[in-house]
């Protein structure tokens, strides 16, 4: 500044200092009040530029003896840089930018002394440019406010959704735990059902087996009982028969005691005859005599209706067998025939005994 003044003095010129533009201003109490860090607060069309770069502007005032109002801050604006890089005019490319607003404010202040000389039409057009920028800023601010409100609404929705999400997550966790409990319970129930089913099947099989065995045992018992009853009936019948026979034998014995004695006598004779046969001295006559006696005895028995006892007959049969053996060993065929005859008679006697029983 001093150098310019010095040069002007040397050149005998008096250029007017229209003002000092503090471009790319960053210091401001307004900055940092916007929706994002480092930005100006909303509605910067009402931005108070007096507070921007205040300290530096005060230094300028003191250093160059100018009025504070002759210093014009233009805040740092990325849109101004973008416009310069792309060789576009900020008022056209970014009319709603801080740069557009601040430079127009600065130019109005700087050109204040000459605008009074401007024709009315020029002033109107200048004001139209200012209005256009103001309108653009207003619309941008409205849009920005709307966007901020939408952002806030979105953030609120996001917070709400986050809370709902948290609640849902808790419920989901609880539901998962419940599901796990139910699955464990169901698994336990399923195992119990399976075990119960196995037990039921086992019980059923065991019951069937027991019933089968019981039924078999019952049937077997019934059969056995029936057999026993049958045997008992037979035995009973036999007992009755034996009692009858015993009764008859007792009667026969009582009525033919003599016959019994005779029979004993014959038995004695047969024993003697047997002794004789053992000594090979028995005779055919004696056998015939014995036969005759047997016949008589048989006749007596038949006449008396009392058959000889079995034992007695057996005894006779045994004696005859021995006699037969003696005859065979002695080589006497007549004796053999006699023995056969005796055997025949004995058989008849037995038949009689059997039929009489």
């Amino acid at each position, binding site marked *: 500044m001093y150098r*310019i003044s010095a040069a002007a003095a040397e050149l005998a*010129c008096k250029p007017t200092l*229209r003002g000092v*533009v503090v*471009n790319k201003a960053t210091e401001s109490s307004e900055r940092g009040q916007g929706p994002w860090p480092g930005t100006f607060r909303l509605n910067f069309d009402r931005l108070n530029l007096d507070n921007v770069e205040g300290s530096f502007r005060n230094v300028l005032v003191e250093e160059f003896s100018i009025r504070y109002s002759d210093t014009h801050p233009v805040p740092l604006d990325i849109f101004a840089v973008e416009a310069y890089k792309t060789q576009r005019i900020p*008022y056209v490319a970014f009319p709603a930018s801080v*740069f557009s607003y601040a430079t127009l404010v600065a130019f109005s202040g700087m050109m204040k002394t000459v605008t009074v*000389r401007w024709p009315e039409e020029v002033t109107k057009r200048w004001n139209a440019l200012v209005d256009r920028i103001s309108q653009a800023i207003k619309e941008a601010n409205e849009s920005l406010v709307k966007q901020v409100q939408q952002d806030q609404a979105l953030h609120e929705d996001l917070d709400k959704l986050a809370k709902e999400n948290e609640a849902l997550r808790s419920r989901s966790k609880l539901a998962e735990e419940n599901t796990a409990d139910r699955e464990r319970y169901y698994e336990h129930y399923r195992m119990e059902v399976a075990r119960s089913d196995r037990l039921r099947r086992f019980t059923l099989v065991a019951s069937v087996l027991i019933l089968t065995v019981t039924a078999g045992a019952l049937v077997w018992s019934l059969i056995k009982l029936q057999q026993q009853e049958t045997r008992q009936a037979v035995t009973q019948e036999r007992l009755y028969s034996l009692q009858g026979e015993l009764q008859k034998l007792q009667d026969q014995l009582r009525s033919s005691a003599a016959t019994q004695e005779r029979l004993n006598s014959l038995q004695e004779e047969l024993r003697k005859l047997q002794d004789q046969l053992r000594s090979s001295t028995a005779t055919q006559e004696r056998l015939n005599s014995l036969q005759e006696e047997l016949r008589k005895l048989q006749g007596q028995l038949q006449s008396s209706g009392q058959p000889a006892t079995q034992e007695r007959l057996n005894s006779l049969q045994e004696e005859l067998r021995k006699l037969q053996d003696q005859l065979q060993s002695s080589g006497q065929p007549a004796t053999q025939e006699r023995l056969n005859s005796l055997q025949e008679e004995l058989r008849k006697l037995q038949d009689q005994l059997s039929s009489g029983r």
Partner: protein
Amino acid sequence: MVSTLSLERTEIISVASGKGGTGKTSILASLGYALQVSGHKVLFIDTDFATDGLSLFLLGPRGWEAMSGLDDGNTFAGYLGRHFVSNSQQNFPESFKVNRGRQDDHGQIYDVIISGRNLYGDLPEQMTQLAAPELSREAFRRAVRKFFDYVRGRKEWDYVLVDTRGGFTFNTTDVCALSDSFF
């Protein structure tokens, strides 16, 4: 859209800054646009043939096509070169129209005196020497003063906006000192 409205006097406004990259070209171009849209006749002059910022900005993405018909007579550096050689008053640079008139672009047609011809680095070395002469401070002052007086005398523009080199070398301080106003 160029208005027929005109002020009685041409005001030359320069912009200066203690260093490069402060955004003075953006501010100056924006001011020029606002003035032109308001109906003023505006001439842009780029005296910063070190960076050619204003020239490149106004010429736009297809600037090399717009420069095809230009020569040193349309550049500030060319003017200084001719002044260095002949010190003639007849060699003032002529502005030319840069058409950024499409509505999706700037929507304006600018009067521009660009800084030099070697904006895109496509000139041979012997031509660039002329495009960026190293004048003495006195010679520079004389050249700028004559040029500004010539511009004022044409009474063709309401405002002439002059972009300067960053820093406070005499190329910047003297341009500002010879302007009607600066910021």
